[in-house]
């Protein structure tokens, strides 16, 4: 057993219990339903703004692209315009593919010793991280957008359309949303990978497990509310609409499970800016991806170069011309 994942697991359990018992036992609905969500929103946006502006202030002296294709060269050598772009358009395409399709993960390879007698090192293509990551991120995005139905009144058509698509399987009542199932399956896969793949588990810290457990806790409590234990959705929308219209109310009779769910979500939001989850903003700033590889075509001047005081040969000659002529040394200008 490994404390790197047992501690975060225990923490997530405890956080859930704090909110659940706080509401069911101590009646702290106002704290967990109003104060904590507002505080989390402030922490999220404040922290996000702080992190990104801090990154923006750091210098980018020159281009450090990592390239995966032929750079622009002689006219008869075919350039790989997206993987090694020398223009803004190429960079834009590379970024779009990276952000929406995670191309860097697609290239993931695995190094392992061959089982044959020669026992040589071989590299093989390892696609499951990419599949899992895509499934996870898109399912999570769908789930978040679907939740907007609790924060907007009247609910716009495009959210209803997304709900319709997500529930297209028409399994059971209330209708099964596919995104919830995919999200839980993908996040469990990403966790299993961290625990069972020795190489990954070796470099995983509590900070890697904590967000995973937090998201698993959020997913399980959400799925349980919708399909199993059931909660009063009307009351919950009254509460959430109260939050976004700045008229917070605590309706009667909402189960502690809901407050546990909201507490975990609030923790996720508040923790977001100080965690690895900031890769959401960071991916846009990846210096190896977001700059054209034109080091050989354009001169990039280091922005923190200061003016060096130089004493040129002309000035030197001006200072010593007479003495040089006297000593018979050659000079450029005779006068």
């Amino acid at each position, binding site marked *: 057993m490994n404390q790197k994942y047992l501690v975060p697991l225990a923490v997530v359990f405890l956080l859930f219990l704090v909110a659940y018992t706080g509401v069911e036992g101590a009646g702290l609905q106002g704290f967990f339903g109003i104060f904590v969500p507002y505080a989390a929103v402030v922490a999220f946006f404040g922290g996000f703004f702080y992190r990104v502006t801090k990154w923006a202030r750091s210098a980018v002296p020159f281009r450090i692209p990592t390239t995966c294709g032929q750079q622009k060269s002689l006219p008869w050598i075919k350039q790989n315009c997206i993987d090694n772009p020398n223009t803004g358009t190429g960079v834009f395409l590379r970024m779009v593919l990276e952000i929406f399709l995670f191309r860097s993960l697609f290239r993931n390879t695995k190094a392992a010793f061959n089982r044959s007698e020669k026992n040589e090192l071989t590299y093989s293509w390892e696609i499951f991280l990419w599949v899992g990551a895509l499934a996870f991120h898109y399912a999570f995005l769908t789930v978040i957008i679907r939740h907007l*139905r609790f*924060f907007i*009144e*009247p609910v716009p058509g495009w959210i209803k359309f997304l709900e319709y698509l997500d529930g297209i399987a028409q399994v059971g009542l*209330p209708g099964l949303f596919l995104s919830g199932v995919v999200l839980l399956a993908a996040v469990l896969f990403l966790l299993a990978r961290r625990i069972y793949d020795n190489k990954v588990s070796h470099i995983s810290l509590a900070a890697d497990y904590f967000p995973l457990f937090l998201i698993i806790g959020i997913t399980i409590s959400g799925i349980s509310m919708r399909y199993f234990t059931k909660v009063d959705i009307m009351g919950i*929308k009254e509460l959430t609409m109260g939050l*976004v219209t700045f*008229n917070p109310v605590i309706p009667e009779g909402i189960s502690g499970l809901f407050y546990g769910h909201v507490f975990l979500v609030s923790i996720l939001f508040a923790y977001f800016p100080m965690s690895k989850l900031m890769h959401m*903003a960071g991916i846009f700033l990846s210096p190896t991806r977001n700059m054209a590889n034109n080091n050989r075509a354009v001169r990039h001047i280091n922005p923190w170069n200061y003016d060096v005081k130089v004493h040129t040969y002309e000035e030197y000659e001006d200072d010593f011309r007479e003495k040089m002529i006297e000593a018979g040394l050659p000079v450029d200008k005779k006068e």
Partner: protein
Amino acid sequence: MSKSAIFTGLVIFIIIALFPFWINFGKTAPVPEPELVGKAKTAKKCVLDKMDMRANHMSLLDEWRDSVVRDANRIYTNTDGKEFAMSLSTGENSCLGCHEDKSKFCDKCHNYASVDPYCWECHTEPKEIK
């Protein structure tokens, strides 16, 4: 990336992410009260307790549907021993037989919670037939 580009992106993100706050600005969203009309007005009790119906009526309907369609069992006995002919919209004891006005009852909640049950693609509201 240039600082101005980063800053523009950051501001756009923050504005979009705060969209639930500004789109509702200055509005209030009162919770709709489903009206009990028709027989439901005189009936004292729903199939189950009120809070249970509120959260669980979809599961009850699922149970009813499976029971009728798969087991050909049309009689449901609730906890008080009262019998219901299980049906969404046919007969006195069906949901819509008692809650006579769908638009003043079911739809009020469903519009607010953004659910659009697909049942009405096949089942009909008794009022519509008349």
